[in-house]
């Protein structure tokens, strides 16, 4: 981390003036008499241009000069700190906030593309209500009336479905739910590794211990795509950079479909889908034969582990025995090491057991306390991120089916898109008496609601959020309006604002806050006692309170005092069945693979991300199906062929997907991967009608222990239905495409040297 802080050169700060925008910007309408011309043309323009002065601007607003406002990225629950560059009253770019311990000034593509959500042409900018079965735009007065009518009274049968919710938003929702007396607040985010969190809680007594990648000398990752899609990609990427410094750490990635992390591994091992746990167990068994490691687990357990036949497990996992022994050898020689489990391991049939097996290795190797570290206690746990997965969602959907819920509120999640066809979520949803969506975009769920409240983007509103995976405990991120609402004052409203009004109706104790801004500042000020540092007034005449607010806003975060904790690791012997052997009518395992970019589909409406090629297959603006060359040869499939994919659950309701094939070696021959993200039936012009959604085909296979849906355990059948079509890739060339080999053709574009040479020749720069 020290290096990262060094990199974010302090001299650059002189450039930046991150500051708080007092009240939503006076009359910072798109004006500022600087470059009022939005489009700088390259030809001479023959026309007369207007120049609009500000009416009554803030002192620090200088037309032509940029201002940076600190904010928090809301593209995924990682909660990276951002600086929004503002000129002439419009946000122009998002950059990482160097003060944030999560991302230290960097952002991932999704964070960069946040502006396309903010300025999205398909954003909702009028409340909508269902009239005669159709959603029509209504006035805010009508919307408020409807809101009070349906949500403003105690209602036990109200369900709140949110994404990952944290900070004061979460506090308000909790207060609201308490006030109306409903217990149905569920969070659903398919990308949060709920299975892994549960396993970690069992092993370490902590749902989310800190994984210190930088300190590890060897990382063995069972499908954890920490560079791409695992909880906090930017944070892990900056740790990864540290990890790769001399002397260089080694990364072994074991998974069925290569992820971004896999493509950066020193050794990528293709494993039979759903058998990651078996491999971990085999390694544990080898470790158990060494008393040094066996001492860390109970005796019976090591005895049980020793029973394992490595050759048999090699057979099960399709990884050569020699390879397993090699990994074991390196795990014993390189310390500290770190074992992680992620998407493909945890979403198999026995997800939690596989995760337990992976974490058992950490316990046996003595990594707990070295690379797996305890979290410090945050004084305000209510502000923490509330997440949930399929188990909670399917419970709500069942409740809806049974009529136990009459009002649904959806905020920040899109269950109707994600839920597999077998859940019949749409039907269940239709059974609710009244449905409300707080939403920015016309997504599938929003358009199925009866009342749609268009909310501000995260760059237009006040708010706070707490990261899902805090890099540093006790840091609450703050958001502030960086510009005047894109569609004007009376179009969208801040979520907090709407909630506050709603709560005032059911809980009079909130009445004394005029608006959400006042509430937030008040709430933060009341936590003063628990803050790590108290800023001193910098300017004459500034009160302590003003100094506090100014510092909080320009930092974009607040650090609370935390209390240290310890981890108590307990070894748990995973109970893994031998998986059913492939074959029969559905011989292949479907891996719906998330990717950095479209994520789980929530970013499909951002053109920048649609146009960002997939890191491995280089496909843009489309869905595809990854298939190993051997399997492809067997079935006579070539890149670009149209493939029909069907599953058992899909066949019952006669649902199948048709998608283009990409023959690529970075996948296990028994696995078929279809990326997540496309296949929207709504969600604006950029997302609608592109590609397919692999979730639709999933079988109702649930993890035994956690009740989460086993997303990567569905068996499928594929069938070629048409020959080579055009598939859009970064490498436009047919020459590249037909072979799809991506050869360097003798040019020295990227060469590899061995880590041995690297450690010898490189020194820290």
């Amino acid at each position, binding site marked *: 981390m020290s290096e990262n802080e060094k990199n974010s050169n302090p001299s650059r700060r002189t450039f930046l003036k991150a500051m708080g925008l007092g009240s939503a910007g006076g009359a910072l309408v798109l004006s500022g008499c600087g470059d009022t011309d939005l489009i700088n043309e390259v030809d001479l323009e023959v026309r007369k241009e207007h120049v609009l002065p500000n009416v009554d601007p803030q002192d620090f607003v200088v037309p032509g000069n940029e201002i940076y406002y600190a904010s928090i990225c809301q593209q995924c629950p990682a909660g990276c700190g951002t600086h929004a560059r503002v000129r002439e009253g419009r946000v122009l770019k998002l950059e990482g906030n160097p003060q944030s311990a999560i991302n230290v000034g960097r952002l991932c593509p999704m964070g960069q593309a946040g502006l396309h959500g903010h300025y999205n042409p398909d954003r909702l900018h009028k409340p909508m209500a269902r009239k005669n079965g159709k959603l029509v735009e209504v006035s805010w007065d009508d919307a408020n009336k409807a809101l009070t009518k349906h949500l403003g009274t105690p209602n036990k049968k109200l369900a709140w479905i949110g994404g990952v919710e944290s900070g004061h938003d979460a506090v308000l929702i909790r207060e609201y739910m308490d006030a109306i007396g409903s217990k149905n607040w569920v969070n659903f985010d398919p990308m949060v590794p709920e299975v892994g969190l549960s396993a970690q809680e069992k092993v370490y007594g902590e749902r989310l211990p800190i994984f210190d990648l930088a300190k590890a000398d060897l990382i063995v990752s069972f499908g954890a795509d920490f560079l791409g899609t695992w909880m906090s990609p930017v944070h892990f990427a900056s740790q990864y950079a540290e990890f790769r410094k001399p002397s260089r750490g080694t990364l072994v990635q074991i998974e069925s479909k290569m992820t971004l992390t896999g493509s950066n591994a020193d050794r990528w091992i293709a494993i039979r889908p759903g058998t990651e746990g078996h491999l971990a167990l085999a390694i544990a068994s080898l470790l158990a034969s060494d008393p040094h490691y066996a001492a860390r687990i109970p005796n019976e357990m090591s005895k049980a582990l020793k029973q394992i036949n490595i050759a048999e497990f090699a057979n099960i996992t399709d990884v050569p025995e020699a390879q397993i022994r090699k990994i074991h050898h390196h795990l014993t020689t390189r310390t500290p090491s770190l074992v992680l489990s992620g998407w493909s391991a945890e979403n198999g049939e026995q997800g939690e057991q596989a995760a337990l097996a992976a974490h058992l290795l950490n316990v046996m190797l003595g990594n707990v306390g070295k690379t797996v570290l305890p979290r410090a206690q945050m004084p305000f746990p209510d502000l923490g991120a509330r997440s949930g997965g399929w188990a909670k969602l399917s419970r709500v959907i069942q409740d809806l089916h049974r009529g136990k819920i009459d009002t649904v509120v959806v905020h920040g999640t899109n269950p109707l898109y994600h839920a597999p066809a077998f859940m019949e979520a749409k039907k269940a949803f239709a059974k609710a008496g009244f449905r409300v969506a707080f939403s920015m975009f016309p997504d599938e769920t929003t358009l199925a609601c009866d009342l749609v409240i268009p909310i501000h983007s995260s760059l237009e509103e006040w708010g706070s959020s707490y990261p899902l995976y805090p890099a540093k405990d006790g840091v609450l991120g703050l958001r502030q309006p960086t510009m005047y609402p894109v569609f004007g004052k009376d179009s969208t409203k801040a979520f907090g604002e709407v909630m506050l009004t709603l709560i005032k109706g059911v809980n009079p104790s909130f009445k004394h806050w005029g608006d959400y801004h006042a509430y937030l500042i008040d709430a933060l000020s009341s936590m003063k006692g628990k803050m790590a540092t108290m800023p001193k007034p910098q300017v004459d005449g500034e009160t302590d309170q003003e100094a506090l607010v100014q510092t909080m806003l320009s930092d974009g975060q607040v650090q609370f005092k935390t209390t240290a904790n310890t981890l108590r690791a307990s070894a748990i012997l995973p109970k893994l069945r031998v998986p059913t052997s492939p074959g029969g009518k559905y011989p292949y395992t479907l891996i719906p693979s998330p990717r950095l970019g479209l994520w789980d589909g929530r970013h499909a409406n951002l053109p920048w991300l649609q146009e960002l090629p997939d890191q491995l297959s280089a496909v843009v603006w489309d869905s595809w199906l990854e298939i190993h060359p051997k399997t492809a040869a067997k079935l006579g499939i070539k890149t670009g062929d149209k493939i029909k994919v069907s599953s058992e659950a899909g066949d019952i309701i006669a649902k199948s997907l048709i998608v283009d094939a990409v023959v690529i070696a970075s996948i296990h021959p028994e696995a078929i991967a279809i990326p997540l993200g496309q296949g929207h039936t709504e969600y604006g012009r950029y997302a609608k009608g592109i590609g397919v959604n692999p979730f639709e085909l999933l079988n109702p296979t649930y993890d035994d222990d956690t009740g989460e849906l086993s997303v990567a355990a569905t068996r499928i059948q594929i069938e070629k239905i048409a020959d080579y079509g055009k598939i859009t890739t970064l*490498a436009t060339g047919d020459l590249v495409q037909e072979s799809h080999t991506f050869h*360097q053709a003798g040019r020295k574009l990227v060469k590899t040297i061995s880590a041995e040479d690297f450690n010898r020749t490189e020194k820290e720069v």
Partner: protein
Amino acid sequence: MKDIEWSRINKDVLESLQSPRPLFWVVIAICVLVVLVGVGAEKYQYDNGLGVALMNRPHYWQLYISNFVFWIGMSHSGTLLSAILLLTKADWRKPIYRFAEAMTLFSILTAALFPIIHLGRIWDLYWVMPYPNERTIWPNFRSPLLWDAAAITTYATSSALFLYVGMIPDMAICRDNATGWRKPLYTALSLGWMGRAREWMAFRKTYVIVACFLVPLAVSVHSIVASDFAMSIVPDWHITSFPPYFVAGALYSGCAAIITLFVMLRYLFRFEAYMTEEIMEKIAKLTFAIALVWNFLNLGEYVSIWYSNDMFEKEVLIQKFIGPYAPVVWGMLICAMIAPFAMAFQKVRRSMWGMFWLSIVLQLGMWLERFQIVSPPLASNHEPWTWSVVWPGTIQLTITAASFAWFTMLFLLFCKVFPSISMYEVKEMAFHRRREGLHDEVENIHDIQEEIIKTERGLT
């Protein structure tokens, strides 16, 4: 051979200005139609951007540039026939050089359209011209495109001049016989030509000087066009032998075009008596010789790429023969490399329609040659990630077709307005034939001159 009747020359040629065969009008009508379609295509391209022409990265150049090279190439034969053969005093050039020169002028005018059509911002075209301006910005004199611009304008001007100078005595003949709107036109263009000996002497000298100027110019022009490619670092463009290769190719396709137009004119304007089989045979022999030179240079190019053993160049060469553009390359080899050997047979050389179709085949071959020079190297370049194959789209093909129509239209209109056979030179040829065995008249030019001077003195 039945000789041309002196007295019929004027009549026959002037006849051609009035009543060509009806097919002439059909051809003109088709040409105008195609040109209009082409203009529409260009308008569409202008409005929407060059993307509609289906070029892309890395195929930044395509048909427009290969057409440009093709038309510039075609312009070379006119100069060759008329200037080089004038200097080498080949008498048989006389009935055909006029239309060959016209062909030169019109093909270069057609060629000049292509860089303009090809340009991304046509409206800023004038920036390519070195004109003094307040910004003290000049075009980039290092760019071969600028040399092109200079070479083409020079060549167009001088070949127009050459054509015009050679036409002055005929203009006088026309003037004397013309009526209506043609009368003032010919009067202006004939510059008061009276056919006096003194005028003839000045005329001869001017003509020869312009010819001397034009021959090296023609060679340089196509060398410069070749340097558009040779000066780049694109593999298989960056070839030292490109200038002579281009010049040979130019003469080759130009000669083939002359054969085509020869047959066409002979039929349309009833020039059977002038454009005889003997002349055709001579052109065919010339074409055959040039074809052999071109063949040699072409094979030499392959060999030198092969032995240079440069990875990039070799790759492109191999791709040419087995890659996606292989049909074009093989088509080119069959049409331009093998087909000309038909001209080894006298029967073919003397058959008008045989030669007509053969010349079409040769031109097709040379057109494909230009395409395979431009496109395959762009398809598989240095950077393997960007390899891609693109075939020209409808817009490009339409504009290409329109360029052929445009050329044919201009050419036929010229032949309708101006005598496409040089009357005075054909007379001269007939005169020479009669005086077989005698010395050339130029031998005595000095004596004649002296005589004239004496006469002039006597007069003044």
